């Protein structure tokens, strides 16, 4: 049985910590963009089709189709207009998005974000003022920690084998 009292006591502090981490993620990705480690789709750019690659992406323009950036971060900026499904490690939405999101680690909808679609991610954060309509498939955080701890040994073994 879940200890709801403890969970509730931890929710506020978790939310504060999460928000700090989320802001850090956003800043790091934007910083990487300036240094050339991240691609950016400018506000006047329209892309139709599949976007894939091996680096982080900031979308401030229009994208229709699919964004496949597994293992990387995707930010839909305030001016971003996206009608696409996105699969990435971390997904941050500050603009408008119509599509499904698969976040391997987390999905964050900022206060200016407006998302219509379905989200699958172990962690979903919605800031006050953000708009969302759809479904969210979540796993409990406590279970994720346990899973990560138990699977980290397996992951290390797999890496060794593949090396």
């Amino acid at each position, binding site marked *: 049985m879940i200890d709801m009292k403890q969970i509730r006591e931890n929710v506020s502090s978790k939310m504060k910590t999460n928000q700090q981490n989320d802001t850090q993620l956003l800043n790091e990705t934007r910083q990487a963009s300036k240094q050339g480690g991240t691609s950016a789709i400018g506000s006047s750019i329209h892309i139709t089709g599949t976007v894939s690659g091996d680096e982080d992406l900031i979308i401030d323009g229009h994208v229709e189709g699919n964004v496949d950036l597994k293992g990387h971060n995707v930010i839909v900026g305030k001016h971003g207009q996206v009608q696409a499904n996105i699969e990435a490690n971390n997904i941050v939405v500050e603009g408008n998005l119509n599509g499904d999101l698969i976040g391997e680690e987390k999905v964050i909808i900022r206060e200016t974000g407006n998302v219509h679609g379905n989200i699958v991610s172990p962690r979903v954060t919605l800031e006050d003022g953000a708009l969302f309509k759809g479904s969210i498939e979540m796993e409990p*955080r406590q279970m994720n920690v346990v899973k990560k701890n138990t699977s980290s040994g397996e992951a290390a073994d797999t890496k060794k084998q593949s090396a």
Partner: protein
Amino acid sequence: MPFLARSPAKTKVQDSRLSSKSPLLFSLLDKLDPEKRYEILDCGPASAGSIDTLSNYHCKLYITDSRSELCAMDTKELDSAHKLNRAFVKSLQFYKSHKASLDLILLWDLPNYLQADILSALVTYLLPHTNKDAYLHCYIHTASMMPATPGKYSIMEDSQVRVEYNSDDKRPCPAYYQEALHKLMYPFKVKRSILHTNGIQEYLLSQK
């Protein structure tokens, strides 16, 4: 009447935001099995607090943000079962071909604002997407007047539910009794109810 009328000075968080205990909702959340996967429907708008609290469970959370669409539904226009079903599909997006398996339906204070026939039709529409042991949770105003529009609810820490209203305007309240709810929400029956000090009755219903 605001959500907590007795001591608004103490409970007022920010302008129109008020908090209140919600023992039936939290007793239900306390009973959720962390090993099981649940499907939960929240008919209100997305809220950070609810998502954060429910993310502690293995669940699929449907957020339909459908208050305005449902409140605007009128049986004069939607005068056939087909038209009603189409309107519900557009608003809630549960399709016959892709059934959900809901364990908990959070209607919040919506039943007070829907036409009685629309409320019955809503329950009928949701039924095929609902587990037999599913629960339905709602708040019913019992005073003669209630806020003009439904509130935006958010599950917070310390067994609190926060509600936010768009304005201080009031309108007459249907003040449903338990028997009326039995009829309107058939086949759901009232399992437990608590009258809050502010005149709002919290209901937990199930089919069993």
